[in-house]
């Protein structure tokens, strides 16, 4: 929504902002005490990082590291979602959003000593926007319609786009647009699993990696280019961060509570009470994107009928799911996107739990209850299948509970836990997985297009997308709305489209939103100053240990 502004401060009070201002992030305590400098933070991560090419930063373990070792052109204020200066001091955007010109802050260096100047920024976005075949670099999800870069002077760079790209300015603020040195861009994609080879300009530098087990980040004492509007400037307070990979949920929580670790990712909802009871802190920053949902693949005949999808939507008791499995950190969904997301519209009136209505809808659609309590039509059983999605919190239990709820209206729902290969392949086949869990976080309306458009993540599995198994399903009304969001440059019109899409997806019952997914972290009582970027990845720049 700020993409039209020529300078970030102008013109900023747009509709919907008031809601966003009201939402603060749990635990981003404003430091009234004087921070102590020094010490090592022990951070427990659930999964090892993969390749640390910045556009791969959407994967949480990657994002958690890249956010410490790289800086971005712009800074998205996590509270207001405004785009503020960082490595870019200012910028100009032409009227039709095809040219973006950035003024680079002088004096910024990468950790190998090379300057972060216009040439380096140009090289980064050339790689992100066009990919680099010879290095196996894929194209970044957030840089669309990219044409070329132009270095105007050593501290000014301009990007040219083939088509209007309203989302690009926000795109420069995300972890996936972290700036890395030329030496990093000249490595092969495969080599970048070694964090020590990823040279950024961030407040921390990766110094030692034991692949799959541990990573050490050391503070850059010469760091002096934090986003200008932050209170904290200069070097990070911590000396060192130890990332330790601990896949076991029980071990992470046990280690935190027994004082062996300071900060832990993925605290499950059922562990929250014992964490707070002992004076520890739960941080649950919103991911501000698409809610944790299950989506339908209408290409499959069983869910091609809108009435069937609506019936299942009303058979689902999201209140019960959240009450049974989750906590206050997981608000019940009121739309397909989070209430903290841009353009959110409360349409919870359309999301009621109403098993009677569900049964009626199914009866009308011709699915009759049999003696065994299951529904059939022309002898065919209404039996649906989905794979659990391991990265989502308690997804297995969530799907099982949904299965119980759907069972009450006579619909059989199988939950599979497959190997990664089968999961990926079957999830592309609407005949095998008529239902799928889905979620993605990004603080820009582009996220909706990313999720539903056939050329992107394509969760509904339309024709023309990644899947070759889809026979005929394609919803041009939906695609038209989504493309509108990506291309529309007037923020008010853009938000209007976002609202329309929310209504449309629920009216068609393409998705059943369940809850607003936070990233849940647990922190020791003496850990202060943890911040989160707009979609819930931690930043340790201002963190300090009060002990």
């Amino acid at each position, binding site marked *: 929504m700020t993409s039209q502004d020529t300078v970030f401060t102008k013109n900023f009070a747009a509709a919907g902002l008031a809601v966003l201002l009201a939402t603060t992030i749990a635990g981003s305590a404003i430091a009234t005490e004087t921070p102590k400098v020094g010490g090592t933070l*022990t951070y*427990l991560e659930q999964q*090892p990082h*993969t*390749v*640390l090419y910045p*556009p*791969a930063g*959407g*994967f949480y373990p990657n994002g958690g590291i890249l956010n410490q070792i790289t800086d971005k052109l712009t800074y998205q204020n996590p509270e207001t979602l405004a785009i503020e200066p960082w490595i870019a001091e200012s910028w100009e955007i032409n009227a039709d959003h095809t040219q973006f010109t950035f003024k680079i802050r002088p004096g910024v260096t990468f950790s190998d000593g090379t300057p972060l100047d216009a040439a380096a920024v140009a090289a980064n976005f050339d790689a992100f926007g066009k*990919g680099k*075949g010879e290095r*196996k670099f*894929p*194209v970044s*999800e957030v840089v669309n319609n990219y044409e070329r870069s132009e270095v105007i002077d050593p501290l000014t760079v301009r990007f040219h786009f083939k088509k209007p790209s309203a989302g690009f300015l926000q795109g420069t603020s995300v972890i996936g647009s972290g700036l890395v040195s030329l030496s990093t861009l000249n490595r092969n*994609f*495969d*080599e*970048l*699993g*070694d964090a020590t080879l990823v040279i950024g300009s961030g407040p921390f530098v990766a110094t030692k990696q*034991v*692949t*799959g*087990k*541990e990573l050490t980040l050391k503070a850059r004492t010469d760091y002096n280019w934090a986003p200008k509007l932050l209170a904290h400037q200069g070097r990070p307070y911590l000396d060192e961060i*130890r990332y*330790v*990979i*601990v*896949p*076991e949920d*029980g*071990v992470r929580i*046990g*280690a935190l*509570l*027994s004082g*062996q*670790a300071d900060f832990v990712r993925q605290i499950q909802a059922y562990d929250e009470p014992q964490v707070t009871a002992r004076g520890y802190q739960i941080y649950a920053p919103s991911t501000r994107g698409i809610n944790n949902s299950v989506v339908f693949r209408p290409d499959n005949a069983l869910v091609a009928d809108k009435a069937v999808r609506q019936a299942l939507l009303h058979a689902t008791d999201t209140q019960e799911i959240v009450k049974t499995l989750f906590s206050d950190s997981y608000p019940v969904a009121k739309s397909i996107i989070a209430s903290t997301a841009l353009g959110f519209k409360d349409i919870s009136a359309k999301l009621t739990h109403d098993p009677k209505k569900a049964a009626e809808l199914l009866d009308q659609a011709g699915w009759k209850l049999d003696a065994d309590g299951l529904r059939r039509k022309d002898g065919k059983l209404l039996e649906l299948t989905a794979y659990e999605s391991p990265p989502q919190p308690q997804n297995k239990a969530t799907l099982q509970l949904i299965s119980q709820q759907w069972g009450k209206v006579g619909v059989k729902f199988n939950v599979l836990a497959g*190997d*990664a*290969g*089968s*999961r*990926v*392949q*079957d999830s*592309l086949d609407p005949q095998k997985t008529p239902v799928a869990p889905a979620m*993605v976080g990004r603080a820009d309306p582009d996220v909706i297009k*990313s999720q539903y458009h056939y*050329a*992107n*993540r394509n969760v509904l599995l339309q024709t023309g*997308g*990644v899947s070759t198994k889809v026979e005929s399903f394609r919803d041009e009304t939906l695609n038209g709305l989504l493309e509108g969001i990506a291309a529309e440059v007037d923020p008010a019109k853009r938000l209007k489209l976002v609202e329309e899409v929310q209504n449309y997806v629920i009216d068609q019952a393409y998705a059943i939103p369940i809850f607003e997914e936070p990233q849940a972290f647990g922190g020791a009582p003496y850990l202060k100053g943890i911040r989160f970027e707009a979609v819930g990845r931690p930043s340790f720049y201002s963190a300090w240990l009060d002990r």
Partner: protein
Amino acid sequence: MHAQLVSRIGQSILVLWAAFTLSFVLLQALPGDAVLIRFLGGDLGLSPEQIAELRVLYGADAPIWEQYIVSLSGFLTGNFGYSVISGTPVATEILTNLPPTLWLAGLSLAAAALLAITIALTANLTGFAPLKAALENLPSLMISVPVFWLGIVMIQMFSFQLGWVSVINPGPWEQLALPVIAIAVPIAAPLAQILLRNIEAVSRQPFVQVARAKGAAPAHVLVRHILGNALLPSLTIAGLLFGELIAGAVITETVFGLNGIGRLAERSVRFQDTAVLQAIVVISAFAFLLINLAVDLLYPLVDPRLRRDDVKGATA
């Protein structure tokens, strides 16, 4: 003897090649592949064209025989390739992960042997019948305990409740204490069973009777004359124990969050990281064959029956 040795080594190389091929075929038969999992299942949000391009770059759609030749010739020339999942060379992955697993396995084996000997000796020396009976049944209990369960329960007790050992920031020995116990308990069981059985058998050998008749103390006879002979047959289950050690490493490294070959192997299976898994299979098959070859060649040289005959001859 030499001809036999050469033939055995030749057969071992053949088995090694077959293990390589078997694992290659198994991995190829899996649905999907690492490139698909990495780029489609990951969080990159790539378009179909971009994925198609990457597949070409990785050679993921080359004919199977071509991939096999590339992979095999790579192994023969010492080029193990890259891990698609972690983005590091396979050789680096193996080199960083092998030493901790060797330590874990070695110490576990030593602990298991110690535990087995302690059980066998105590059972034989104690005059207290209930203790003897309990010790003789102990191996049955030990072999029945799931390693992962023991690991979870021990972490909970000794690290989180009692605070005796740290699992996150431990010293080099501290970090191995609990995993070594978890692996050693089930491995000690078959060793103890062999020992208990063989001590009984060896005790009835004439040379032992002679030693007893000469008035040696029971403990002395047990340690000096019986133990060594009773221990030897356990060499024959060395290959079996090796498999148990690897399985133990996979499980304990996962439960305790240690880095090592076991966890690497599990991850590689899960994400179909073919290059890494092939390397692990070849290395473990090599180790297995080496152990068995050594046992087969050494066993006749140290066979207790031969030694027993010597003793008999000397004392007759």
